[in-house]
């Protein structure tokens, strides 16, 4: 077997074993049907739910919120990190904030956000943004630290202004690290948005999940969970491939 396929096949095998174990546990009634449907039933429910289009609106709604939260996290994170990188004392002050950010349960601020922004789309978007932005800032700072000094000198030799230096030198040089931040930002944004919708929203996949959970509607709840997992894994895989391509292009990975 070619080495290229060995790892993906191994991953599939582990997944298949996990699913198989669940299938057996459900068949033996060790896991009862009220707790969880057997995996094959979840798969059939998933196909049925997607074919019916019943949650299309919710998917679009959540996707829109995730995209907005993520875009904000990337734009604000990259810009803010670029400024902080230029002011070392500010960075020293903020380092503690960045390192402890994820120790704070941001979802706990959700009631406050509802008071400030109301029950619309803004609270989930803000939660998604707050979850993702620091990952982008920390990765971007790491990337900027790694831009070789000689490339900064090159920008002076090439008579680049600050904008040109950022666009032609520092941002592309930091790109692999920014991508690492982007991967985390997307994951955190999905978690933030779906969890916020789950708690109090009236639309979106999180709301659909909460509704199905409260009504013991396993035929709807598990397919939605599967959908969120599949979406997250797909997006993460695509970004991982892109990151690997960038690193290979730069001779940083074989």
């Amino acid at each position: 077997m070619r080495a290229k396929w060995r790892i993906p096949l191994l991953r599939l095998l582990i997944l298949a074993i996990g699913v198989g174990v669940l299938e057996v546990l459900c068949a033996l009634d060790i896991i009862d049907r009220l707790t969880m449907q057997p995996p094959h039933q979840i798969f059939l429910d998933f196909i049925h739910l997607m074919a019916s289009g019943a949650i299309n609106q919710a998917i679009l709604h959540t996707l829109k919120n995730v995209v907005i939260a993520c875009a904000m996290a990337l734009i604000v994170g990259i810009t803010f990190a670029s400024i902080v990188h230029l002011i070392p004392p500010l960075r020293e002050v903020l380092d503690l904030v960045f390192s402890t950010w994820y120790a704070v349960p941001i979802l706990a601020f959700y009631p406050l956000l509802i008071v400030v922004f109301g029950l619309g789309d803004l609270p989930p978007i803000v939660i998604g943004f707050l979850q993702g932005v620091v990952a982008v800032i920390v990765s971007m700072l790491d990337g900027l630290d790694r831009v070789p000094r000689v490339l900064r000198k090159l920008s002076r030799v090439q008579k680049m202004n600050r904008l040109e230096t950022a666009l032609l030198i520092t941002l592309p040089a930091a790109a692999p690290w920014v991508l690492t931040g982007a991967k985390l930002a997307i994951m955190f944004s999905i978690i933030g948005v779906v969890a916020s919708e789950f708690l109090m929203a009236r639309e979106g996949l999180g709301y659909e999940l909460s509704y199905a959970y409260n009504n013991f509607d396993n035929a709807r709840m598990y397919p939605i969970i599967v959908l969120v997992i599949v979406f997250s894994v797909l997006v993460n895989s695509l970004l991982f491939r892109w990151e690997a391509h960038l690193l290979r292009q730069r001779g940083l990975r074989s």
Partner: protein
Amino acid sequence: MDLGRLKNKQQKETFLAPLVSLRQVKKVFPPVRGGNPVHALGPIDLDLRAGEFFAVVGPSGCGKSTLFELIAGLAPATEGTIAFEGKPIAGNVPDGIGVVFQEDSCLPWRTVRANIELGLRKSRLPAAERDAKVGKVLELMNLTEFASHYPAQLSGGMRQRVCIARTLVMEPRLILLDEPFAALDQQTRLLMGEEVLRLWRAIGATVFLITHALDEAAMLSDRIAVMSARPGHILEIVETGWPRERDSRILEDDRFGPTAAHLWRLLRNETLRAADAR
């Protein structure tokens, strides 16, 4: 050039004027964390003639790279004046100066062609003319078949050729080379040296080379400045007297050994002094 063909006194003076002149140039770095200021360089007086190949050798830490950065306009002098074509260099890289660094400064996310094109982004040339110019430099540097490669796909020597090509495409009148072959093995260094000599003859620019390697300086240069240990100043400027048409076979010349030996004689004590200071 026949000076008799220059019509008036002003033209003759312009031709004879040094391309770069340094007068009483000194560099002192300010104290760091309560330490003392570091007198790194100078005072230095030096003239570079148009079209010559000039090298600087000296012990580690003598201020060679500082001198390089001052002439490149990457750092300001603490005292004295530096002029390029009669105009003072004041901490900015002047037009007409091309710089090649010791470290690999290829942009790894751009192809060889795109790296070279970087130097032309402000030229406002029509696309066809720009392509032709890049094509010519690619050919000059024997990089044509690697135009669409990324730097990571090239050897260290070829990446350094890309950096030189990116400088050449800007048609500089002065090329500054800061130990550009330091990371290469000896054979590749000799061949790269030959290439630089070929380019120097082809484009007619002045070359200012910083190097640790005495044989490299002796092989490539018309004149070699030998620097003292820190604070670096010029001990002597050695004229090699080589013909313009030369390559690495100059190593076989009877005068090569004595030239390199003379450089070492000048440098030996300074190198010991620099080592003691460390």
